[in-house]
């Protein structure tokens, strides 16, 4: 029912298990896309389409480890190096 239509968030394997970072991302994202789960970072898929493209998660994580993908824009990536 609520598969994301507009936004996908890709997380690099290198940070997937980082609990501290996961907690930080949970705190920082205004629309609750990240959750600090038992095994580290989880993506709350029903909230993906709420992403406001604010880049706060990108600023909070090591460069290039999170990619916000605009599915409606041929997979354009938010925060990709120009």
């Amino acid at each position, binding site marked *: *029912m*609520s598969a994301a*239509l*507009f936004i996908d968030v890709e997380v690099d394997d290198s940070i997937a298990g980082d609990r501290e970072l996961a907690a930080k991302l949970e705190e920082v994202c205004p*629309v609750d896309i990240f959750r600090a789960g038992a095994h580290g970072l989880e993506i709350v898929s029903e909230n993906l389409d*709420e992403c406001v*493209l604010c880049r706060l998660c990108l600023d909070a994580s090591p460069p290039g480890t999170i990619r916000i993908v605009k599915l*409606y*824009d041929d997979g354009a990536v938010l925060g990709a190096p120009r």
Partner: protein
Amino acid sequence: MRFFEYESRAIVAKAGIPVGKHGFARTPARAREIAAEIAAPVVIKSQVLSGGRMKAGGVQFADTPDEAATHAERVLALEIGGHMPRGVLVDSRAAVQHEYYAGVVWDGIRKLPVLLFSDMGGIDIEEVAERHPEHVVSAHFSTLRPFADWQAKQLISSLGITGQALTRLTPIVARLARLFLQYDMTLAEINPLGELADGSFLALDAHMDVENEARPRQRALLAELGVGEQETRQAREPTAFELAGEEVDAQDHRGVAGNVTEFDGNLGLVIGAGGGSLTLFDAVRSCGGQPANYCEIGGNPSVAKACGLAKLVLTKPGVDKIAVMMSIVSNTRVDIVARGVIKACVELGYDPAEKIAIFRIPGAWEEEGFKILARYGVDYADRSVSLHEAARRAVERIGPQSAPVDGPQHDARERV
């Protein structure tokens, strides 16, 4: 929010204004009891918020408790102006010598409350003001300083009233002015304010309206009167569709999808904000369109809220297409609303390009929004297309109201 007469009576009495013996009854048996307690001829008054109850037979006179019960039974079952009464007021019948009027309203120009007084009570004050202006006097009063008795006295005496009538009317009118402010009223009137043979005064009927915005701080009064938090007492009872709209709005705290109002056309409207909605609704009608609803989105709603509202409108029987239109937005985001309405179409199994007659929301994040709309083939417009032009385009696209069965709705569903 309007109070019933029996509630207004309670408010007036609480303020220390004399009222006749009375009681509120929801059953004929209770009406009989009250009439017996009053032990005199009574009048049975239907408790509805709509006017014209006298004409409709909602006011009956009874000489005995049994008669009171009989009348109450009839009045309790009588619908007036589309409303069933909440109960009946069993009121004593006073031998009135003279009827006065006292009322308080806000004056939006002077930005002060204004106290109105007339020695021609019992009829509509606006009518008196029009036909006998010399019988109505008024005075504005401060909201910062307590209302003083002399202010009431001065006003009443300006109609030439003196003697015992003046001294007895003064505290009543002053109390009315004070209760108006104390209880955040938008209207507080006693009409008629009756003078009895012995020279005493009674508030025979009262109308009170409390401001909705003040309900949170008038909780104590409302609880005392037994008014439920959910009771809105709109001029028209909300429909199931409208209640569903309130649910959509309540699902999260981000933004507003409010004031959903049902109409019976074929063009669903997802429109905003306050002024934009008013303009757009007029625009749709002026070019021959038939709106299925009114609504106001704004305040930067979530995708889920925009989606919920669009789904509600899309699934309303008789709706062929929706028009998504707002005046230029600065806080609400174009891309977020675009996502919401497209998501609604897709999740319902519709093609957004078919179902969205037009999307005209320019402003914040429009580049991003227009990308989304283009991707789904939705007809969209920027600020160079006026609100009226957008409405015209939507109406042209939807055409006249179509037959409800086997319409495009059906086809779209089957495609998936």
